[in-house]
């Protein structure tokens, strides 16, 4: 039997009468980078908080790092690193003091060395006395990651770690994550960025608390069952107006110099666009993108659940 880092089923959370996370199952293999996507307020953060014991689930069962995620959350906390969406370290403490504080809470046997190692890896040995509140967004996020790693966890739960971080820092961050995953660490990362989603080994997409799709990028795209046309040429804006709203046309999205038209029902879509295909523009059937699939999933979910 395969062992999973996270293996949970039927996870449910209600706030009052509102179901925020509805019957979600997830299996994440050790050493995997698992992307967790979905619109704002879809229940991603709530799910992560339940995994690390910050919220009590209303239903569900399963294991996290081989421990029962409902009854053994105290043990799980020692082996999991959780990076919150908002920077949640002490802004009035220096970089070193923050790391030292966390290392003390986890009762690291060789605390000073662990802090030193962490500072070195961060490249902040010289700036150790700087107050965390004075760091820029990218550095804050690196400090948060370093602090999550200081107790050498087996599983990292990162909640939108790269929100508001510039592209270069984002890329460095992901390189670091891939390096860590190669050494055996498991990641569960929520994100809104499609380029980040495609850097994950596998994905799950949730909306309104429901799991809509999961698997590798290719699997998710395939499961979306979306047909997409790419159109290039002149007068795309005028064309977009004409196509939008035709039967079978679900999305008309401008991408710079091209236009993407897609829909789940290939027959209807093709029938609707056929009069335009012979026009002045160049039409080409392409593989649907992750973003097209997700937007399509979300629209469909809206009809079903809201």
């Amino acid at each position, binding site marked *: 039997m395969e062992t999973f880092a996270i293996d949970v089923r039927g996870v449910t959370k209600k706030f009052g009468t509102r179901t925020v996370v509805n019957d979600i199952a997830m299996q994440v293999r050790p050493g995997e980078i698992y992307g967790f996507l979905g619109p704002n307020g879809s229940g991603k953060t709530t799910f992560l*908080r339940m995994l*690390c*014991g*910050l*919220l*009590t689930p209303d239903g569900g069962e399963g294991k996290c790092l081989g421990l029962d995620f409902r009854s053994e959350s*105290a043990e799980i*906390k*020692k082996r*999991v690193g*959780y990076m*919150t969406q*908002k*920077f*949640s*370290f*002490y*802004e*009035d*403490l220096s970089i070193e*003091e923050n790391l030292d*504080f*966390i290392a*003390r*809470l*986890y*009762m690291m046997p060789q605390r000073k060395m662990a802090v030193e190692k962490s500072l070195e890896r961060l490249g902040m040995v010289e700036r150790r006395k700087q*107050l965390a509140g004075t760091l820029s967004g990218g550095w804050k996020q690196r400090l948060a990651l370093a602090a999550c790693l200081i107790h050498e966890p087996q599983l990292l739960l990162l909640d939108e770690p790269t929100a508001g971080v510039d592209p270069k820092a984002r890329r460095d961050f992901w390189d670091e994550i891939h390096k860590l995953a190669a050494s055996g660490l498991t990641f569960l990362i929520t994100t809104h960025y499609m380029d980040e989603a495609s850097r994950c080994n596998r994905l799950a997409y949730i909306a309104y608390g429901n799991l809509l799709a999961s698997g590798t990028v290719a699997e998710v795209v395939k499961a979306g069952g979306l047909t997409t046309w790419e159109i290039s040429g002149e007068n795309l804006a005028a064309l977009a107006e004409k196509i939008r709203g035709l039967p079978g046309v679900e999305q008309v999205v401008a991408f710079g110099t091209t236009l993407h038209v897609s829909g789940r029902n290939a027959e209807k879509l093709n029938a609707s666009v056929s009069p335009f295909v012979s026009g002045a523009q160049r039409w080409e059937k392409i593989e649907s993108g992750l973003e097209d699939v997700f937007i399509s999933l979300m629209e469909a979910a809206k009809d079903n659940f809201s």
Partner: protein
Amino acid sequence: MSFNFQRLFAIVLKEFIQMRRDRLTFGMMIGVPMIQLILFGYAINSNPKHLPTAVYAADNSVFSRSFIWGLRNSSYFDLVREARSPAEINKLLAENKVQFAVTIPVDFSRKLVRGEKPDLLLEADATDPSAVGFAQAAVSGLVATVLNRDLLGPLAKLRATAPPFNIVAHQHYNPESISQYNIVPGLMGVMLTMTMIMITGLAITRERERGTMENLLSTPVHPGEVIVGKIIPYIMVGYVQVILVLLAAKFLFNVPMLGSVPLLFLLVLLFIVANLAVGITFSTVAKNQLQAVQMAFFFFLPSLLLSGYMFPFRGMPGWAQNIGECLPLTHFLRVVRGILLKGNGLAETLPDLWPIALFLTVVLIIGIKRYRQTLD
């Protein structure tokens, strides 16, 4: 998951670093008490003297002059005006120029000599009753003696006769009725109530407001470690305040310290912890720092007004006394005044210690029940 002193130490250390960096709060902890001490200590006086007084002497005789001298010597009255008519007296009182007005009628000395027991009018601006009480009492004392020197020869029979018995009044513990002896020790309790509740209330809601609580809860830290870790640094702050008040009491206000100061030092711990527990409990209810401050004031006002610090406890109606009995400050005031002014020992303070302990227990149970280890 059990209580661990290593993690407790981590929290204490962190709190100290944050306290050191937060200049404003630090200033509040030391500065506010000092300002209170100076203002309350020097400003509040429930036995006011040298009250401005006007005299309308329609009868200019030896007797009226002696009476006026007597007033002046009592040190309660400063004669600032000689009025020329009863109307002027009324005007002076209405305009707040004088606190007292004495009217000596035209035929005062004639009636006096005839043994007709003439009236002498003393009018007071009694909008604030406590400002005139002591002075009025002093006047009645004057009547018996002030004219004895002038009533000579045939008039000697008019001298006040000795009453059939004497009342010997001893004002124990504060014979000179010096307000500061009462105010300054009490201030120790008042400032501890205010700062301790507010500071701890803020300390936990701040963690929640800044999002650091989420991080803290995701670590293996125990709720007891967080609560105790936040209480310990403020106990020390409380002791700094206690020392400041005691130093001021001794060297600025010369408050007598008859009892054991080390005993007071020990007992104040119970009171400090009781107040810190209130702050912690408030912070488990408050959603943000503003609410925490509002709750602190909500608790502070009845403490200030109903504890017997501002107004005599026994002067309050029964229901107010009952509320007052529930507040730790009420009992602590009795403890601190008892030890310093009366020289009380542990035995005499016990009746006021158990109510504080009971209060602490109840509040702490509520606080721990309400403190959540999750974000639900």
